[in-house]
């Protein structure tokens, strides 16, 4: 009796072996392995002046809002 029980238990263990879920989450943070890039503000036009670059870009971004250009009441 105990022998047949052991056989059944062993068979169940083999058959259910694939049912377990292995954690597939990456354990380490990905680190960029390529070349270092210069900042956008570091080009010849702004010479590293990030404040000036941000102001220029903000002006461009806001220019996309035609409500500001056409003086329509908000």
């Amino acid at each position, binding site marked *: 009796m105990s022998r047949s029980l052991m056989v059944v238990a062993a068979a169940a263990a083999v058959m259910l072996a694939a049912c377990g879920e292995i954690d597939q989450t990456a354990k380490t943070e990905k680190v960029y*392995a*390529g*070349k270092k890039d210069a900042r*956008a503000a570091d080009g*010849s036009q702004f010479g590293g002046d990030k404040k000036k670059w941000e102001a220029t*870009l903000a002006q*461009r*971004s806001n220019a*996309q809002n035609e409500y500001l250009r056409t003086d329509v009441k908000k």
Partner: protein
Amino acid sequence: MARMKFICDAERCIECNGCVTACKNEHEVPWGVNRRRLVTVNDGKPGERSISVACMHCNDAPCMAVCPVDCFYKTEEGVVLHDKDLCIGCGYCFYACPFGAPQFPQAGAFGLRGKMDKCTFCAGGPEENSTEAEFKKYGRNRLAEGKLPACAEMCSTKALLAGDGNVIASIYKQRAKTRKKGPEVWGWAMAYKEDANIAAQEVKS
């Protein structure tokens, strides 16, 4: 500085393909590679809507997560870029991207798949700013010139907005309030589902 983002206003897009053409021209993108493209839903039927799609420069970009050679990086402004010298053209990023942004040159024989190419938010890549080398590999670096992406600046109806996420979100919000529309707007039900009535009241108030 917040993160750089694109928003496409489906209520304004007229499917002119101006953004696609501007991108192709600005970066001299080769045949078979489309950094930006238009997707039209219910084409030819009343109520059809188009949106301009390219790399969305995700906060948690799946392309970065799956790259086996770690060639992706994110700039201070949240623009997702990659190093073409490191890319092996495996195509994993293409399968991971929900927007189909990564593109591969297909002009070669025997199904040749070259290095991945995608929208750079007109920010070039890991080469010295505004150089010949940067242009050849990644296209023009408009951001270093203090300009927004060519696609958005070229958009005739200003359907495609680009720039600081907070700024373009406020532009879009003002539009939504001015239209005074609610659940009849395309995509509303998809976005808000059962909260559609509550959200509609918030916009109208």
